[in-house]
């Protein structure tokens, strides 16, 4: 690396990215970024030119979720910066490591309502893990180093760095710091041995244990450890939406997802359990339903790297603050001998049998007669079958998201990308593009709705430009399906503003962008068209599946109800 050399801020910025081993950034140029884009022109960083800054952030997010590396975004000041807010908030809610660089007007103009000025540090303060305004070029390297460190350590999250134009044009000696020292930021990784022992003793005394695993398992790359832990003890395991893929979806111990659209078995098991083992999950309201009646008989063990997650919503009896992977390793090491484990598994066999019965009696289902309109669930089952469960799936938000979560079985971590916390419509397509850039050879499918897809449809152009064969499977029901479902159930079928009768012809739209487009109206054609789409490798594909407009997502726990009070199909 070029050390001790005098450089411009723009050159230093690029050198910092190289030092952080950043290969790809997602961005959009603008006035204050001209000095940086001039340096970018000479390589070696790959720059993906997006069509809207929100798209850039979701792409970086998708890139980060599949690769585990921080996503990097570069956008200009003012509107470029404000357009990133939804993407940043999405990443913040789901703890995605990301560094967003925003250009800012020159230091001397800050606060003057200058052209394309926005107080982006102020605006993003509540939706970033931390943020910075670089006021002195001498601080540039230190701040960038800290930004990457904060974004990727502890509970990950987005960090924003706002850099005024005169910092890019100024000069100083380049020296990238080797180490970061932030005394006020010292995440706990190792679990407290006393707590680990206490938790194990408690688990081993339980008769009806359940593991409830969340996104933390994926963030900590702990799916192997989780699987081993659950297997050794024979623990029935459920995952949250964010935890899908963290425990193999086809594993016999897997009860499926829990919560508002969780499986009957998972929701009943969590309600009846005497020992709830929460691992990297945060008791979100979509998981707990009515909090006072959530897991009413359970002693709660909670493993989480973020102390604020513990006892925030549900009182925790045995907290273990630490990295999920490290803590699970500690717990596996501390497990008793095989004979005792066998005895424990035998002791809970009646419970496992009960769960098995729930699973069989009320499995996820839909009308499989093949009559009438295409069933959206059928499309997802076909996608699962034809990709052999090996695709990276992204979703938009709403019914498409829930059906994808229910009917695609995720066996591997980092293969299901969805906006869990914020619930951002328009997430799926750019996230799929980011994922495809990280893994060019993988099949990447955005399971979309006709409403959500129109929120970031412009990124099809980005996918065409970089020849990315992302498949957009639109489950087109001509309505905002999830909201319509609530109106049907709880608002006397008064379908207020949920009908999207005017929509583009998605096939022509795809073709006009230079993408491939298909339209499917009959269930018998679903398989054939998916097969054709999977053969295309040089451009994105939009498939317009005309599905049954009145299909609902079930089971469903009405808002504010306990999770064992489900509406079934």
């Amino acid at each position, binding site marked *: 690396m070029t050390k001790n050399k005098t450089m411009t801020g723009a050159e230093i910025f690029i050198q910092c990215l190289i030092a952080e081993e950043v290969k790809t950034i997602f961005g959009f140029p603008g006035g204050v970024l001209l000095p940086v884009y001039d340096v970018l022109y000479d390589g070696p960083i790959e720059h993906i030119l997006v069509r809207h800054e929100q798209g850039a952030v979701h792409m970086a997010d998708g890139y980060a979720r599949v690769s585990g590396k921080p996503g990097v975004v570069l956008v200009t000041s003012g509107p470029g910066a404000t357009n990133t807010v939804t993407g940043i908030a999405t990443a913040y809610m789901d703890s995605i490591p990301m560094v967003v660089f925003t250009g800012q007007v020159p230091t001397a103009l800050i606060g003057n309502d200058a052209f394309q000025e926005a107080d982006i*540090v102020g605006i993003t303060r509540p939706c970033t*893990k931390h943020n910075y305004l670089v006021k002195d070029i001498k601080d540039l390297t230190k701040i960038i180093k800290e930004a990457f460190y904060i974004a990727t350590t502890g509970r990950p999250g987005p960090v924003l760095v706002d850099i005024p134009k005169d910092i890019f044009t100024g000069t100083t000696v380049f020296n990238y710091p080797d180490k970061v020292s932030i005394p*006020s*930021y010292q995440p706990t990784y190792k679990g407290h041995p006393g707590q680990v022992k206490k938790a194990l003793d408690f688990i081993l005394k339980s008769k009806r244990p359940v593991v409830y695993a969340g996104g933390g398992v994926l963030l900590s790359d702990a799916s192997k450890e989780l699987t081993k832990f659950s297997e050794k003890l024979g623990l029935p395991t459920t995952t949250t939406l964010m935890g899908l893929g963290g425990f193999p979806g086809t594993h016999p111990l897997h009860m499926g997802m829990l919560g508002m659209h969780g499986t009957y078995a998972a929701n009943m098991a969590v309600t009846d359990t005497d020992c709830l083992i929460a691992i990297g999950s945060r008791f979100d309201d979509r998981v707990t339903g009515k909090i006072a009646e959530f897991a009413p008989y359970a002693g709660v063990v909670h493993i989480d790297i973020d102390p*604020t997650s*513990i006892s*925030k919503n549900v009182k925790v009896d045995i907290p273990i603050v630490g990295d999920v992977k490290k803590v699970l390793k500690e717990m596996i090491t501390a497990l008793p001998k095989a004979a005792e484990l066998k005895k424990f598994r035998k002791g809970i066999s009646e419970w496992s049998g009960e769960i098995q019965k729930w699973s069989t009696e009320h499995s996820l289902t839909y009308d499989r007669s093949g009559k009438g309109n295409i069933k959206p669930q059928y499309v997802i089952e076909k996608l699962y079958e034809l990709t052999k469960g090996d695709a990276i799936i992204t979703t938009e938000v709403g019914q498409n998201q829930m059906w994808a979560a229910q009917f695609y079985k995720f066996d591997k971590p980092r293969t299901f990308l969805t906006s869990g916390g914020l619930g951002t419509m328009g997430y799926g397509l750019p996230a799929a593009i980011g994922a495809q850039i990280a893994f060019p050879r993988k099949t990447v499918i955005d399971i979309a709705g006709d409403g959500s897809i129109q929120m970031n449809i412009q990124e099809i152009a980005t996918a065409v430009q970089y020849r990315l064969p992302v498949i957009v499977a639109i489950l087109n029901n001509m309505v905002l399906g999830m909201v319509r479902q609530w109106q049907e159930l709880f608002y006397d079928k008064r379908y207020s503003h949920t009908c999207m009768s005017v929509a583009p012809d998605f096939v022509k739209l795809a073709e006009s962008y230079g993408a491939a487009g298909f339209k499917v109206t009959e269930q018998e054609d679903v398989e054939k068209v998916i097969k054709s789409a999977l053969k295309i490798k040089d451009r994105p594909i939009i498939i317009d599946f005309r599905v049954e407009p009145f299909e609902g997502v079930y089971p469903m726990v009405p808002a504010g109800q306990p999770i064992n009070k489900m509406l079934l199909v």
Partner: protein
Amino acid sequence: MRHTISVFVTNEFGVLSRISGLFSGRGFNIESLTVAETMDPEISRMTIITRGNDKILEQITKQLNKLISVIKVHDFTNEKHIERELAMIKVSHKTENRAEILSIVEIFRGRILDISPKSYTIEITGACEKIEAITEILRPFGIKEIARTGSLVIGRSPK
């Protein structure tokens, strides 16, 4: 329950809004907030008076600690500490009640900072209750204006 918390933060631009934004964003309550540099100019000390049950206080403490700019959080509520607030009170006076006002100020160990033909400006230092007590007593004379600092707190040294 009322809690008095000291928060040590890195003395940098925007830190006050990080703290106040956390309180407003999460619906926590701030009764008073004071901030100034410590002996180390790179560190500021904030004293925050807040209210909430144990669960809320646990969240406040943890959420504050989670901020990158926060070095230390200390809740003084359940330990021996000294709490002081300073107030400046401008109160109207008339010939017939001047002596009475002055004796009240003396009882509360206050000081007269400024005298005008129509008003006294009184400085008073003490715990929050003391400030409130003198305010109540002076109110009938006609308080024109009050400026209060908010509470400061420091732990009692072990004996």
